[in-house]
């Protein structure tokens, strides 16, 4: 039954006429499901197949408004179905449904061409939001934790819920704009008077190429995006990869001044980003 469920629906959202091994699906269904006076075995199986697909598709729609805005309805829908066919859920929770979407976008560029790289960036950014929303938080680093270990040996961890992204487009601004557009659209669709529709239907402009470094994190359990200077980003990335504090400062580049590092570290500690390494 699972094989039949996870097989993609037809263009009309029906159960496929043939199973993956080529047998007529009506025969497959009838081999284990009883018909009744109203529905054939095929039709009964189809109820389950549709509900399987619609539930999962809905979930990706909820998690990826930016990607949907970028690709448009038709291409986004095709991408989601292809993704779910290739990567059915491997987790007890739908929270993790999109964890392999960025990788899938890169592996199947034809589904997003010519905007594959941008789509990949948006998908990474949207997955980072899921991580920031309910990812693990470790006890934050206190000044006391720093005392007693020389900087050459000190390794500092970053909160697991924090994602560091270097992107070739300002995807953060783009996703905010799409969400604002969608919020307006849903407010308008709830209204009796459809006057403002023309205004809110406008497309959000595709971002222009510009390299940005963004941290996706949470503070007091609210989601935030924070732009970082490239040296600060490089230092954080080095900490994440397990470098010592001294190595991480070196990774930030030769032009970084000690007072910059002090300011950054004070900010990061205030934001609760730094924690002890496991």
């Amino acid at each position, binding site marked *: 039954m699972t094989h039949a469920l996870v097989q993609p629906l037809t263009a009309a959202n029906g159960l496929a006429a043939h199973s993956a091994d080529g047998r007529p699906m009506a025969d497959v269904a009838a081999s284990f499901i009883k018909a*009744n006076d109203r529905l054939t075995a095929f039709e009964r*199986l189809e109820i389950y197949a549709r509900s399987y697909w619609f539930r999962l598709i809905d979930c990706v729609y909820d998690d990826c408004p930016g990607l949907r805005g970028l690709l448009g309805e038709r291409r986004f829908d095709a991408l989601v179905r292809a993704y779910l066919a290739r990567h*059915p859920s491997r987790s007890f929770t739908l929270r993790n449904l999109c964890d392999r979407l960025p990788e899938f976008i890169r592996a199947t560029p034809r589904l997003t061409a010519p905007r594959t790289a941008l789509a990949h960036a948006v998908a990474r950014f949207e997955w980072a939001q899921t991580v920031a929303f309910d990812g*693990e938080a470790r006890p934050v680093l206190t000044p006391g934790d720093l005392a007693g270990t020389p900087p050459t040996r000190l390794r500092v961890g970053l909160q697991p819920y924090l994602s560091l992204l270097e992107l070739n487009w300002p995807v953060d601004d783009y996703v905010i704009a799409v969400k604002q557009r969608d919020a307006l659209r849903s407010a308008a669709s709830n209204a009796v008077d459809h006057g403002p529709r023309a205004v809110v239907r406008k497309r959000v402009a595709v971002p222009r190429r510009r390299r940005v470094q963004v941290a996706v994190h949470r503070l007091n359990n609210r989601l935030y995006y924070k732009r970082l200077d490239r040296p600060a980003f490089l230092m954080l990335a080095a900490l994440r990869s397990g470098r010592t504090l001294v190595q991480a400062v070196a990774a930030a580049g030769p032009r970084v001044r000690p007072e910059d590092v002090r300011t950054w570290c004070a900010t990061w500690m205030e934001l609760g980003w730094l924690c002890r390494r496991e």
Partner: protein
Amino acid sequence: MPANSFNGQTDYGIGIGLRVPHYQHILAKKPVVDWFEIISENFMVDGGRPLEVLDQILEQYRVVQHGVSMYFGSADRPDRAHLQKLKRLVRRTKTPWLSDHLCWGSVDGTFTHDLLPMPYTLAAAKRTAEKIRYVRDFLEVPICVENVSSYAEFHVSEMTEWEFLSEVVERADCGVLLDVNNIYVSAQNHGFDPYAYVNGIPSHRVGQMHVAGHTKFEKYILDTHDHPVLDPVWKLYAHATQRCGVTATLLEWDDKIPSFDEVHDEALKANQFIGDARAAQPAKKSVSRK
């Protein structure tokens, strides 16, 4: 049965499901609600807002955990890491009992996120009961299994759904979360008598009930949880309550969720049937002693 070993000897009244659109209202207004049912999986996370909200709710309200991913009927063995995560949540909520569905939904680690009906065979009942016992022993909390709504029946089934449910819960020595809407939906889809179902299960094992709304299509009924409870379901609920005794009852409303007050008012409609059942109870007791 008001209080029994399957619901941790509690006597809970009418509850509603804790849902995201109502968080703000509940935390700000602190409405009087007897208890909330939470979907365990929504809080089996490592941190962030969900657990913050849960802790605030737990300060004010009684919470019962309801799961959607245990898949007692799946052949896969329960994953220990998953159970450990669930147990941490059980300790956090102090849920007096825990419910999940009599269904399957995963194969070799692939999850359908659906509650799929089981073949009603003795072999499946034995295997399922074993899994329920294992999970209960691990979690150290009473378990009630819920009957699901279904749209398909299998050739291999050897018994009715209520015979299968009875077989499983007797073998596992666990409770029943009787979803009367699911009984009604399946009865319509498969053409059986929903009253025979309610009369056919071990009533002393019912630790909780569910009511919900459904949607009628031309050839079948879909369990949509996006409507008020329909009259025939309330009627069946009244019958179940008379037969099983007044039992902790929860209204499920999961889609097109209206205001908190609307959901709560709908749930409280159960009170009128509970009153009737209470009035009928002394007579019932004298009959059952014979």
